[in-house]
Each structure stands twice: as structure tokens, then as C-alpha cells.
């Protein structure tokens, strides 16, 4: 709660003013009965028309003042609550952006989404409510109690007999309630996850006609959410009946006691009536009181979930200030005895990998499915840290580079062409924000997609759906390549990114890339792509089994021969 509330600090003055205005409004309201009494006593009873008019106007004046306070309070409270929410969301998002990939594996997207929207909304709305009505109820309760003490201290003591029990009871409810609401929010994560999964898999769901299956799965998850929500809310609903029951019974005791006092002439009947009146007023505020506690409990649960992210210090990407590129090893990538396993797993995915690529060279990486090719590439932009060994880029260990500088040298084309909602132009510019249209065209031309784009009705302004749904596989891959080469990277990483391209297009692409100075690391399945490389690294089960040129490997490596034979066979067929 503390962590999250600290984001209110910049707006504390707005919040305080809102609270002040609320008090003012309350005072104005309380003044009313006094004025009405005055009108009756001095105006109506004495038949003084002037007094009626004067105090009548006063009444209107005070009502207007209260109204003004209320309206201004609304603006201040809304400003404080919304600004607080904005800052909170931003802080969360910034923190999430600094997560390392390892941390991302721990927090599913869906859970982060819930925290950024639903949880923030929960806290924000209770804050707004608090700034407008919160103190009203507790204040009224406390004031009424104080008045009871003034009227008759002994009866007041009896009235408060249940307070310790109630306090403990409320404490337990809030504590358990916030645990339960925490569970509700986690269920919400699950709902989000299930939704996201079904949406991502929509083609598959439809292809296998799994509507019923998916619906049933979703129903179960929604049912869990329902049950837990019910549990939490019902728990909170205990508050109001028990509070009023305890108070009512205490009141009876007080009356019993008071009646005895009255009978012994130690108290006045009027005192008794006053006590009863105040006690009834207190119960009247219990509804609001319970409502506030309910909101507070919920906000507490959400706050804890957000604080978990906000205070996180481990699992973030470290920020190092950039340093000059040593010129002598410009564009060199060197692996020295690198081993790697994914966090929380035992199996080494890469073992003792060593190789070197120099500027302008093209290294092909081949190997069987699951042999660690993609993992190897993902170590270069430091998505993950090697468990052993070191990776040197431009003559400097990559852990000494600032992430930004390191990644700005790299053009990365992932295996799965991931595009974002927006125009084609913007998707390419994602690689270089400030690029001019000319540069975009140059990149797309090299990536062999320019002509295709021109055939689209809106050309470069054509909107790409989420994940590029409305483009063909090959189009996505080529856009993804264009996005990488527009950066004019020193190191170009292509993770099997030409698999959906036909031979002709692919050949043209490699041709166009020939004159770049970039060092290229290319994962491929195709021998003819590998042939064009300066060297080939052959992986098997995370180890390098062979390294050399096509011709060398054709002679030395059994596995390579085998791969080649599966692709050359057709020659024999004819």
C-alpha cells in the first residue's frame, strides 16, 4: 500500500484541498439546522418577517457556498485521482519495459495487463471516492461518539463495549478480504490469459472446430473467477450486519443501564434520548463505512500486486553508460566457450560454443530441430546471459556494453515475423524512427518487398493487423527483414527468416544484401543458403559438431552430408 500511495505525493496538495473542501461542505451542511431553528424561533414564532427573509437568504447563500465547494472538490479530487493513476500506470509500464527476458518468462503477459489496467482502476476509483466522501463517515461516527461522551460518559462507555471486538473482527475481515481479493485478481489474470490464448489460436480453434472445448475451458476459468469473487464479496458483506448488531445490542445495554440511572435519578431522560439518537445516527453511517472498508480492502489487494512489480530490483536489465566502439574489431562477433541453460531448467541448451565472425562475413548456422540455433542467436543482443563463457562484440564483452548501444548495432530478424498494428511504413520505421520515406523504400527494395507493397491499394499506408494477420507469411518475413536493415546494422541476425520465401526471391534478397558491410549470422535449413556463407557452424544438441565452409563440411561432416543429401536428392531423381 505504501509503495503505491507514494505516487500520490506529487498531488498531495490537490488531495488535501479536496479534503478541505469536503470538510467545508460538511460544515455548511451542519449549519443548516441551526439556521432553520433561528428562522422558527425568531422569525415564525415572533412573526418577524424580516428575520425570516434574512436568514432565508443566508440559508440559500450557505447552500450555494456548499455547492461551490462540492463542485471545486470534484475537480481537485478527479485531478488528483487521475494524475495518480497516470503516474502509477506509467511507472508500472516503465518498470515492465526494463524487465529482462527471464523476468518476462516469470510474469505472463496477461497478468501484467491486469495489473496495468484493472488493478490501477481499482485503486484509482477508491482514491477518488475517498477524496469526496471518505472522512465523512468516520468523522460523523467519531463526532457522534464524542457527543455521547459529553451527554453521559458512562453510557458512552457501555455503548463502546463492543469496540474492541469489532476492531478485531474488522481487522480479520480486511486481512482475509484482501487475501481473497488478491486471489480474485489472480483469477482475472487467468481469464485474461485464456482469452489471449484463444484469440491467438483462433485459426487453430476454428480449423479443429474446438469451439465447444474452448468454451468449456473458458467456462471453468470464468467459474473460478465467479466463485472466488463471490467468496470475497460475501466475506465483506459480513461487516455491516455484524457491526450494526453489536452496536444495537450495546445500545440496549446502555439503555438498560441508563434506565436504572434514571430511576435512581442519577440521569435525565433527555440524556437517554440523546444517546439513543446519536447511536442511531452512527448506525446510519455504517453502510458507508462498510463500503469504504470494502473499497480499501480491494485496493489493498491490488496495491500489493502493483507493488510487487514496482519494488522489483532483480531480474531487470542493467543500464550501463555507453562507451566508444573499439575500431580494430569493428563488427566482430566472438563466442568463447559459451554454455547456456534457460533459467529454472537443468538442461544445458548450449555447450561450450566458440567461434568468431569478422566484419562483413556471413556465418550460417545449421543444425537439427531443437539443437539450440535460436537460443544461440538470442544471446547476442543479451536477451539472456550465458551461464558460462563470454561473448565479445566489437572487441568488448557484451556485458560491458550498454544494452542500448549493443542493440543499436544489431538488426534482428526473428524466426516468427512479429509485426505490430499500424501502417506498413511505420512497421518498417520501427527499426529506425527518424527514417525518411526514401530510406524506407531503400530497405524494402533490398528486402524484395517494395514492389509487393506498391501493389497494395494503400501502398505504404496499408494497415497491418495485429501480428500482421492480413499479410502472407513471406510478406511478413520480408517486412521483418526490411525493419532490420533500415537500421544499417553492423551485425545482422537472421533467424531462419527466409523460410517462407521462394527460391528466386530469396536469391534476390541475398544478392541485395551482398554489398552491406554488416556481419551476418544466419540460421537456415537450406544448403544453398549455407553455400553462400563464408563459414558454417553446425549444431547438434547444443554443441558445435562441425565448423567450416560448405566444401569443407561436405568432406568432413557426416551430419552435413546427410543434410545436403536430403536436399540434393532431387538431382538423382531426375
Amino acid at each position, binding site marked *: 500500500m505504501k509503495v503505491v500511495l507514494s505516487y500520490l505525493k506529487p498531488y498531495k496538495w490537490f488531495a488535501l484541498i479536496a479534503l478541505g473542501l469536503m470538510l467545508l461542505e460538511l460544515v455548511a451542511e451542519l449549519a443548516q439546522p441551526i439556521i432553520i431553528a433561528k*428562522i422558527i424561533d425568531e422569525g*415564525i414564532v415572533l412573526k418577524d418577517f424580516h428575520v425570516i427573509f434574512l436568514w432565508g437568504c443566508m440559508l*440559500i447563500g450557505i*447552500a450555494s457556498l*456548499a455547492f461551490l465547494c462540492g463542485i471545486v*472538490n470534484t*475537480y*481537485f*479530487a478527479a*485531478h488528483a485521482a487521475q494524475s495518480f493513476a*497516470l503516474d502509477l500506470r*506509467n511507472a508500472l509500464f516503465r518498470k515492465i519495459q526494463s524487465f529482462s*527476458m527471464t523476468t518476462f518468462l516469470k510474469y505472463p*503477459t496477461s497478468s501484467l*495487463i491486469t495489473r496495468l*489496467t*484493472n488493478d490501477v482502476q481499482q485503486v*484509482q476509483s477508491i482514491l*477518488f471516492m475517498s477524496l*469526496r466522501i471518505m472522512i465523512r463517515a468516520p468523522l460523523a461516527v467519531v463526532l457522534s461518539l464524542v457527543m455521547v461522551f459529553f451527554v453521559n460518559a458512562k453510557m458512552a462507555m457501555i455503548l463502546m463495549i463492543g469496540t474492541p471486538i469489532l476492531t478485531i473482527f474488522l481487522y480479520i475481515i480486511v486481512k482475509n478480504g484482501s487475501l481473497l481479493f488478491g486471489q480474485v485478481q489472480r483469477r482475472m489474470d487467468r481469464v485474461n490469459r485464456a482469452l489471449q490464448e*484463444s*484469440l491467438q*489460436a483462433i485459426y487453430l480453434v476454428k*480449423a479443429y472446430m*474446438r*469451439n465447444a472445448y474452448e*468454451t468449456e475451458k473458458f467456462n471453468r476459468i*470464468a467459474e473460478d*473467477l465467479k466463485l472466488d469473487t*463471490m467468496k470475497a464479496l460475501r466475506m465483506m458483506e459480513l461487516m*455491516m*450486519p455484524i457491526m*450494526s*448488531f453489536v452496536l444495537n445490542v450495546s445500545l*440496549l445495554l446502555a*439503555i438498560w443501564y441508563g*434506565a436504572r440511572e*434514571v430511576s435512581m435519578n442519577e440521569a435525565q431522560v433527555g440524556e*437517554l434520548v440523546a444517546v*439513543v439518537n446519536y447511536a442511531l445516527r452512527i448506525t446510519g453511517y455504517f453502510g458507508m463505512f462498510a*463500503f469504504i472498508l470494502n473499497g480499501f480492502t480491494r485496493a489493498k489487494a491490488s496495491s500489493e500486486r502493483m507493488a510487487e512489480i514496482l519494488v522489483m530490483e532483480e531480474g531487470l*536489465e542493467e543500464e550501463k553508460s555507453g562507451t566508444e566502439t573499439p575500431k580494430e574489431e569493428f563488427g566482430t562477433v566472438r563466442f568463447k566457450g559459451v554454455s547456456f541453460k534457460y533459467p529454472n531448467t537443468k538442461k544445458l541448451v548450449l555447450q561450450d560454443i566458440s567461434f568468431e565472425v569478422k566484419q562483413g562475413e556471413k556465418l550460417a548456422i545449421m543444425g537439427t*530441430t531443437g539443437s539450440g540455433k535460436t537460443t544461440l542467436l538470442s544471446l547476442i543482443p543479451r536477451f539472456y546471459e550465458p551461464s558460462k563463457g563470454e561473448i565479445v562484440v566489437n572487441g568488448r564483452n557484451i556485458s560491458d556494453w550498454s544494452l542500448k548501444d549493443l542493440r543499436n548495432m544489431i538488426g534482428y530478424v526473428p524466426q516468427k515475423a*512479429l509485426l*505490430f*498494428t499500424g501502417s506498413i511504413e511505420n512497421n518498417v520505421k520501427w527499426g529506425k*524512427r527518424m527514417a525518411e520515406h526514401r530510406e524506407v523504400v531503400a530497405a524494402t527494395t533490398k528486402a524484395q518487398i517494395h514492389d*509487393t507493397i506498391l501493389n497494395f491499394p494503400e501502398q505504404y499506408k496499408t494497415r497491418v493487423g*495485429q501480428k500482421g494477420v492480413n499479410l502472407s*507469411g513471406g*510478406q511478413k518475413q520480408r517486412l521483418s527483414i526490411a525493419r532490420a536493415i533500415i*537500421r544499417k546494422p553492423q551485425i545482422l541476425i537472421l533467424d531462419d527468416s527466409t523460410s*517462407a520465401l521462394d527460391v528466386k526471391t530469396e*536469391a534476390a534478397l541475398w544478392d541485395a544484401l551482398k554489398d552491406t558491410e554488416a556481419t551476418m549470422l544466419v540460421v537456415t*535449413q*537450406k544448403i*544453398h543458403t549455407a553455400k*553462400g556463407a563464408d563459414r558454417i557452424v553446425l549444431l547438434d544438441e547444443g554443441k558445435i559438431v562441425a565448423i567450416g565452409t560448405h566444401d569443407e563440411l561436405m568432406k568432413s561432416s557426416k551430419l552435413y552430408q546427410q543434410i545436403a543429401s536430403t*536436399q540434393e536428392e*532431387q538431382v538423382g531423381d531426375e
Partner: protein
Amino acid sequence: MMEMFKKPFGYEPILTKEDLRNAEKKHKGPRASDWKRTLLRIWKLVDEQRGLLIAVFIMVIISSIAGLLGPFLMGYIIDHFVIPKEFQRMVPMIGVLIGVYIVYAVTLFMQNYWMVGIAQTTVYRMRTGAFKHLLKLPISYFDKRQHGEIMSRLTNDIETVSATLNTSFIQVFSSLLTLAGTIIVMLYLSPSLTLITMIVIPLMFIAMRWITKRTSKLFKAQQEALGDLNGMIEETISGQSIVKAFSQEDHVKQDFYMKSKRLKNVGFWALVYSGYIPKVFNFLNNMSFAIIAGIGGIFAYYGWVTIGTIVIFTEYARQFTRPLNDLANQINTVLSAIAGAERVFSIMDEEIEEDRGNLPDDYLIRGEVEFRNVSFKYESKNKSDTLHNLNFRVQPGQTVALVGPTGAGKTTTMLLIARFYDANSGEILIDGKNIRDYKRQTLRRQMAFVLQDPFLFEASVRENIRYGRLDATDEEVVDAAKKANAHDFIMKLPKGYDTVLKADGSEISQGQKQLLSIARAFLANPAILLLDEATSSIDTVTEKKIQEALEELMKGRTSFVIAHRLNTVRHADIVFVMKDGRIAESGSQQELIEKDGIYANMLKQSKGGGV
């Protein structure tokens, strides 16, 4: 300092006068009926639990009575026992009173207990109903929308309904009860003063209209902004590796900030305008006090009413306006719920995929596929057709290779065969019958589709394979995995077939995903097999191993295979070379080689290799 405090008043207005005027013009009537319709739909869902609902209403009535009875009995005790000092007779009364308190506490709890049940069940039905409907929507619906935006409708928007149902229902009902009671008592005391008190009602009505006209729009805008933000978050975080690879953190932060700020701005105005309601009502109440005191004073002056009546009246006026206040506050939450519900219902109002096939469900497909003058274009790319006048006929059991440059329409052709989309013109015939005559269920049950982009669920490997046929036994699953050459790597996973795959699928490679996806198809036992780049990420050695199994699988089934590696399709009976949405060449491999056209050229290139 002063500058700072001007901030709350410096928000850029969201609603312009023009907006409001337009809204008035366009919606004169229908807007109100839109609300009514939405409310009615929510009510219908709530009403499905009528039994409980009635129980809640009864509880509300009892608790209201008990709530009134408590103070009344208390007064009775004071008047009749305390003042006359008759303690002994007090005891039974206290017993009664405790009974009343117990009844009050219990009915209060029960009404809320049941209401929570009703509310959450309603919410559950809304959520699952919307989800069920969502899955029936045509693919084009999903093409147009961000996932996060749709997700927001089923989470954030439904939450507004949930929050409202939990509290507002009981509130509204008990407010109405109190209101009715108070009015009766007031009328009994003084009809003329009652009328005067009621003067504020038209004013309240006008104020309410003024405010709700704004809030209803703002709430909707707020939910939209939230959905937009949700969409952006989902997409960005799902694509985090790209954000990182391109060091675009600052940019997405900026992007997020803009969307978040838009939400703040809309949210601010929604809070402000909805915050007006209690304030305005308070003001009107206070004014009515002044009126009662003033006019009552004049009445008393002339001796038309007694002073006592005025005193009681001011008290009742307060009683009268409190439930009105409560109602006004509830209108706010109800409006926000309507805004949320509308967005949920809009999913349910989307037209589902037309599925009016009249062929029997158990119709067995042999596998003849024919395209007659089929043309097709995607909604989003509205200039040129993706497929032009496609004509072909494939006999049952034949294997067809679709080759050609990317964007030629190969995947689209497959999507049309599985009826993900309907052709714009021409007909697609399966076994000589129009594809529209089949129910989708009938059609797809007899097809297996291995998609370009394999997807795995966050579930065990076993369940993921079983997705191909839900009633498959464990042995069949293992068998399918063996055929797809996935068994070996599965056994190396920490828990074998029971390994639960992560959402991001980080433990297994893209190629392995494809293997699992193929295993699914092996389980399905289809008449028509559609393989779209099913082995593109698999190394050729492994591919060769599955190739034989695949060929076995294709035997006796009509198969369409897309592959860029021509080796993959060398066993095809027919090859269609597609280009720009047309079939440029077709025939057996041998025919095409002899023809020495595009295909022959492609073959040469792939063999010539080199870069």
C-alpha cells in the same frame, strides 16, 4: 503555486458543444432506447434467477421493516417503561428488540449474500456467453481487431457491470421503498407542503438529463480508451523481444504514455461530470429546505400550518431527498455499467459465421475438391483480388502441391477450402456439393490443418497433441508423436508428455512446435489434409524422417501441401504453380519439367543454389 492549482480546471474538454448537439439530433429518442435495450438485456440475464431475486426483494423488505421497527420499539421502551420507571415490564420488550436486531442482521446479510450470487452468476453468464459467441465469429472479425481490445471487453467492461450489480440493485430497490414510504407520510401530514417539496423534482430531472447526456458519452469513451490501452499493452508485451532487439523501449513508453494520457483525460471528465450528481442534488435539497423554511414560515405566519409541522417537515424533506440522492448516485454506476455492457453486447450482436448447411452431420467426405471461377479478396486489401477466377479439380486421394512466390494466394486457397472465408464469386465444391451446403462442423471434422504458424497452448504436451482428436487415448497420442518424429524430443523434456508448455513456448523450438502440430494432424484422421508450410522450420534431416510418415498419412486422403522447399513436395500427384492469384501452370511434376516453364525454372534455381 497559483498556476499549479489551475491545473484541475485546465483539462482539454472531450465533448464539444457540437458533439452534444449532434448527439441530440442524431439520437433524439434512439439514444434513450439504446439504454433501455441494454438495461433490458442485463435485466433479462438477472431475471433468469428470478427465485433468488424474489428472495432478495423479500429480504430487503423485511430488513427495511426491521430497520424501522428497531428505533420505533426503542422509542416505545423509553416512552412506556423508562419514563414510568417500570423495569420489570421492560425485559420482554428487550427480548423482542434483540429478536428484531437479529432479524435485521440476518436479512441484511442474506440479501447481500444472495445478491452477490445473482450478480456474479449474471456476470459469469455474460462473460461466457460473449466468449462463446466470439468463437463463432468469422475470422475477418479477428483480423480487424487487437487482441487486447477484445480482451478488455470481456474483463474491464464486464467488471463495470459486476460492480454495479453487486450494490446498485439492492440500493435502488430499498431507495424506492423508502421514497414511497416517505411520500405517503408527507402527503398525510400536509399535501400542500408536499407539493412544494416536490418542486425540486423537475429541477433534479433537468439536472440529471444535463449530466447523464455527458456522462453516458464519457463513460463509453473511457471504456474505449481503456480498451485501446489494453490492446497496446497486450501487443507490446507479447512482442517484447522485438521491442528489446530494436531498443524501442523509449518509443513504446512514449506511445503508452500518450494512450494512458488519453485515458486520464477522458477519465477525468467522466469523474467530474458524474461527481456533479451528488453535489447538484445536495444543492437542490438545501434549496428545498430554504423553500420549506421560507414558504412554511409564511404559511405559519398566516396560521395555515403549525410550527410543529414545519419542523417535522424539514426532517421528512431530508428523509425524502436522501433516497433520491442515493438513486442519483446509483444512476451513475448504472450508466457506467451500461457503457461497459454495450461493448460486451456489441460482440454478441456481431453476426456469426453463416452455417446453414443442410447435409447430414455424419456425411462422409471422399475428398474431391473443385474450384469453379473462384475469386476472393480480403476486406482490408480492397483493390485487387487475392484470387482471380480460380478453376481446378482434385480427385479424392490426390496430393496437390501449391508452389509459387509469396503472396500468390496459396494460403488463401487453403483457407477457402477449410471455409475460413467465403469466396466472393464462383463456387467451391467438395464431393460435387457446394461447400456452403456443409455444416462447418461436418466439414472441418474431416479435415486436418497444419498452419503456417504453429500454436501451442499453455497445457501439457499430451493435451496439445490431443487437440487434434479429443477422444484419443494416451497410446494414440504417443503413436502420433512417434510418427511425427516428436517422440524423442518429448522424452527429453523434464516431464515427458506431461511437461506443461509455457505460454511463450520458450522450452521448445519453432521446429519442435511444428512437429507437435503435425502430430495433431496425425491424430485427426481426416479426409482432406491441408499442410501450409508445415515443415518450414524443421531441418531437412528430420523432415525427411517425417516425410515418409507424412506420405503414409496422405495416402488415401486428398492433400494440399504448400512448401517452398520443392523437395518437400516431390511426391505430389499434381503441382499448381500459383502466381498473382492465378494458377499459372499445373500438371504432374514430369509434365511441368518437360514443359520447361516456371516450375522447371524454379527447380533449376533450387538446385543451382548458391547465393
